[in-house]
C-alpha cells in the first residue's frame, strides 16, 4: 500500500470569488485615496504616525490563526484602532485626519505582510482588507469628534464613544468576514455570521479594551504606551496560538488515526476522509453551525472505527452491503471506543445512531447520524471515482430508499453538494 497523497485542499478562503473581489476593490480604493491624500498634504505628527505604523506592521507580522482557518492580527488591529482613537499624546493634542489613519494602517499592514510573502505563506489579502475597512469605519466616525474639546475634557464620555464605535467597527468586520466565508464555503450567511461572532468575540473584546487603553495611556505616557501595551496583547496572542495549535493537531490526529481502518484493510482507501468531507459539506448545506460541523466531522471520520473489533474485515469494507445486525454492532462498538475518551460523548452518540433508519420504531436519530448514514452509503456505492453516471446511480438508489432509510432532506442536500462537484452535469 502506498501513501496516498491527499490532494492539497485549496483553502477556498484564498481563491477569488465575487464577494471577495468586491471587498478587495473597496479596500483598494480606500487605500489609494488615503495614501494619495496623505502624500498630498503631508504627514501630520510624523513621529506618532511612524510609531503606530511600526506597531501595526509588527502586529501583522505576528498574525494568528483562529479555529476554522481564520486569521487575526490582534496586535495590529489594536494598534490601528488605538491610532484612530487617540486624543492626546503626552502634552500635545493628536491631530491626524481619518485618511491618514487609514493610510498608516494600510501601509503598516502591507509592510507586516511582506515577510509572510517572502516566507511563501499566503498574503491573506482578504483578511487585511476586512481589518482595514473596520479601522476606516472607526477612524471616519471618530476623528471629526476628536477635535471637539468637550470630548478630551470629559474622559468618561470619550471612553463611552470609543467603546460604542469599536463595537460598530468590529461588527462590520464580522459581517464582511461572514459574507466572504458564506460565499466561499457555501454556508448560510446568518449561520456564518453567528459562527464568526462566536469565534471572534473574545479576541475582539481584548483588542477593543487594548485600543482604548492605548488611547488613554498615550495621553498619560506618550508613545511609550505602545511598547507597554504590546505585553498584554502578546499574552493573549500566545494563549490563542496554543489554543488554535492544539485544535488543529487534534483534528489532524483524528484524521490520521481514522485511517487505521484503511491500513487494516477494513475499509477502502480514503473512505473515512471522503465521508468526512462529504458529511461536512452536506451539514453546511443544511445550515449546521461550526461546533456541530466539527463534531460531525469527527464522527464521520471515526464512523467505521468499530470495525476494528471484527476479526476479519468485511470484503471491500462497504458497510452498506452488510446485514443490519452487523451494521448495528459496528456502530455500537465504534461508539464504545469513542466514549472511552470521555470527552466526545456527542460524537459517540452520532456514531451510535448512524445505522438507525430515518423512520423506524426507534426515535429519529440525530441529524449528524442521518448525514453520515447517507454520506457513507454514497461513498460505499461510488468510492473515490468521479464518474458521473455512478454518482447519478448512487443518488438514485438513495432517493428510492428515502421512504424508510435516508432522510429526504439529507439526500436532497447531498445531491446538491455532488452536483456542485460536477458542474457540467445535466
Amino acid at each position: 500500500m502506498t501513501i496516498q497523497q491527499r490532494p492539497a485542499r485549496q483553502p477556498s478562503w484564498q481563491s477569488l470569488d465575487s464577494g471577495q473581489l468586491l471587498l478587495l476593490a473597496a479596500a483598494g480604493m480606500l487605500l489609494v485615496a488615503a495614501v494619495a491624500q496623505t502624500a498630498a498634504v503631508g504627514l501630520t505628527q510624523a513621529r506618532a504616525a511612524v510609531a503606530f505604523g511600526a506597531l501595526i506592521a509588527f502586529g501583522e507580522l505576528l498574525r494568528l490563526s483562529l479555529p476554522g482557518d481564520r486569521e487575526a492580527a490582534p496586535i495590529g488591529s489594536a494598534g490601528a484602532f488605538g491610532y484612530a482613537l487617540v486624543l492626546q499624546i503626552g502634552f500635545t493634542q493628536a491631530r491626524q485626519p481619518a485618511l491618514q489613519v487609514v493610510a498608516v494602517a494600510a501601509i503598516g499592514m502591507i509592510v507586516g505582510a511582506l515577510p509572510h510573502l517572502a516566507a511563501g505563506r499566503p498574503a491573506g489579502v482578504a483578511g487585511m482588507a476586512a481589518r482595514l475597512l473596520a479601522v476606516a469605519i472607526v477612524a471616519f466616525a471618530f476623528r471629526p469628534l476628536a477635535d471637539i474639546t468637550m470630548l478630551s475634557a470629559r474622559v468618561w464620555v470619550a471612553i463611552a464613544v470609543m467603546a460604542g464605535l469599536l463595537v460598530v467597527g468590529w461588527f462590520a468586520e464580522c459581517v464582511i468576514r461572514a459574507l466572504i466565508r458564506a460565499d466561499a464555503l457555501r454556508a448560510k450567511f446568518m449561520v456564518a455570521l453567528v459562527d464568526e461572532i462566536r469565534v471572534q468575540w473574545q479576541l475582539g473584546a481584548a483588542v477593543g479594551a487594548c485600543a482604548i487603553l492605548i488611547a488613554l495611556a498615550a495621553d498619560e505616557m506618550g508613545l511609550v504606551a505602545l511598547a507597554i501595551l504590546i505585553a498584554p496583547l502578546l499574552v493573549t496572542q500566545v494563549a490563542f496560538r496554543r489554543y488554535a495549535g492544539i485544535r488543529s493537531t487534534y483534528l489532524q490526529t483524528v484524521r490520521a488515526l481514522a485511517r487505521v481502518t484503511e491500513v487494516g484493510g477494513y475499509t477502502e482507501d480514503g473512505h473515512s476522509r471522503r465521508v468526512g468531507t462529504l458529511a461536512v459539506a452536506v451539514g453546511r448545506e443544511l445550515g449546521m453551525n461550526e461546533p456541530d460541523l466539527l463534531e460531525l466531522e469527527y464522527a464521520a471520520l471515526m464512523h467505521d472505527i468499530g470495525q476494528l473489533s471484527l476479526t476479519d474485515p468485511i470484503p471491500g469494507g462497504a458497510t452498506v452491503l452488510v446485514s443490519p445486525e452487523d451494521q448495528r454492532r459496528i456502530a455500537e462498538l465504534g461508539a464504545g471506543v469513542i466514549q472511552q475518551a470521555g470527552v466526545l460523548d456527542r460524537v459517540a452518540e452520532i456514531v451510535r445512531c448512524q445505522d438507525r433508519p430515518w423512520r423506524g420504531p426507534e426515535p429519529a436519530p440525530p441529524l449528524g447520524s442521518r448525514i453520515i448514514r447517507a454520506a457513507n452509503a454514497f461513498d460505499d456505492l461510488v468510492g473515490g471515482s468521479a464518474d458521473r453516471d455512478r454518482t447519478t446511480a448512487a443518488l438514485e438508489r438513495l432517493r428510492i430508499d428515502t421512504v424508510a432509510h435516508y432522510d429526504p432532506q439529507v439526500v436532497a442536500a447531498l445531491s446538491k453538494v455532488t452536483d456542485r462537484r460536477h458542474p457540467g452535469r445535466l
Partner: protein
Amino acid sequence: MTQGGSLGRLSRAAWLYLAAVLAAAAGLLAGSLYVHPRLDLDFGPWVSTLLVLAILFLVCDSTPTTLTSRQSAWSPSSSATLAAVVMLGPLGAALVGATSLLSMRRGLYVAHRAFNAAMYTLSAFAAGATYLAFGGTLGVPTKLSFPGIIAPFAAAAAAHVIVNHGLLSGMLLLLPPPESARRARLDVHLPLLLVSDLGYATLGLLIAALWSLVNLFATVLVLIPLFVARWAIGQFAAQERAYGATMAALCQAVETKDFYTRGHSERVSKGAAMLARQVGMHAERVEAIRYAGMLHDVGKLGVPTKVLQKTGPLTEEELAAIQLHPMRGLEIVRQIGFLEEALAGIMHHHERMDGKGYPLGLAAGEIPEFARVIAVADAFDSMTSTRSYRGARRIDEAVAELRKWSGTQFDPVMVDAFVMALEREGWDRPHPAVVPPEFAGGMAAQDHDDPTAPLRVVENRLPAGGS
C-alpha cells in the same frame, strides 16, 4: 502572572521549607511595619489604594486557570502587586501579596494558603525594594514620570518573577515524586509562563499610570485582555486533555485485536516518558515521546489478524508483514503535525544496536534517540505483561533480561537510565490477564516485542529478533 501551588502531603523537608518561607515573610512584614518607612504619601489615599489593589489581587487570585494538572494554577494577580509596588512601596505591595491568604479558590488547605501568601509577600517585597533601589519614585505616576519610571519598573518585574518562580520551584522539588514529576510537566509551559509573567507585570505599570486619569476603571480595562487570555489558556488546557484522552481511546481500539496487549500503548508511553525525563530530555521532547510511545504500534493494524494469531512458525512473507508494521505506523501518523523526532521514533523502534533490527537495519548511533528510548520501554512492558505462551515476568527478571540484551539489542545508556527511573518512580505491572472465553480462540501466540521469545520462522535465514 504568578503561580500558586497546591501541595498535597508534605515531607519533613517540605514542612521545614514552608516554615522558613513563612517565617521570612512574617518577619519582613513585622519588621517593616515596626520601622514604618517615611512614606511621602498621605495615609488616607494610601490605605484606600491598598484596599482597591488588594481586591483586584483577590479577584485575580481566586479565578486562576488550571494548566496541566489541578496542582498548579495560573493567575494574573501580579499586575495588582506591581501596581502596588509603584503606588504604595514595598510594604504595600507585600500586604497586597499577603491577601492571598484569603483567596477564594476552592480546595486549598491551610498549608497551601500559608505558603502562597508567604511566597507572594516575599516576591512583592523583593519587587518593591528593587524598584526603590533602581531609583523609582513612589506615588501615582504623572506625565512627567515617563519614560524614567520604566527601567526601575522593569527591574522590579524581573525581581518579582525570579523570587516567585524560585520559591515555587523549591517547594515543588521537595514534594514526593508524583508532584515533582508535575514540575517537569509544568516546564512544557515555561516559555508561555514567562511571557505571561512579563506581560502581566507590565500591566501593573499601566494600572498605576492610568490611576490619575480614570482611577479604578483602568483595572477593568486591563482585566479584559487578561481574562480573554485566561479563557484561551483554559480552552487550550481542556483541548490538550481531550486530545490525550482521544488518542488513548483510539490506540486502545487498535489493541482490541489482541486481548493480551491491552494497555500496552499507554504503558509504553508512560515508560518512554519516564526514561526520557531520566536522561534529561527537554520537556517538549518528553511530551513528544509520550505521544510517540502511545502510537508506536499503531501500524500493527496493517498486519493480518491470522498472522498475529498464528501459533506455528511464520513463513517469510508473514515475518515480513510483521516487520513492516513500523512503516505502516509511520504512514498513518505522518500527517499529524508532530515533531519529526516522534515520527522517527515510531519508524525505528525495532532497530537493534547491532544492526540486526528492522525496518532499515540501522546500528548504534544511527538509530534515532527516540527509537532507542521507545525500544527499551516497549520490550520491558512486553516482558512484564502476561502472554498466551507465558506468564508475566517479575520486574527484576525483566530488568535482568534488559541488561542481558544491553549493547546488542538495546542502547546501554538507555537501559541504565531506565533501571534508575524504575527505582525512582516504580512501575505498575498490568493485572494478570484473565482471558474471557470469547477471546479464547483469537489471540496472539507470539509477541514481536518480546526479546526473550523471538518470532519463530520456518526458514531460519532471516535475522529474526534476538536469536
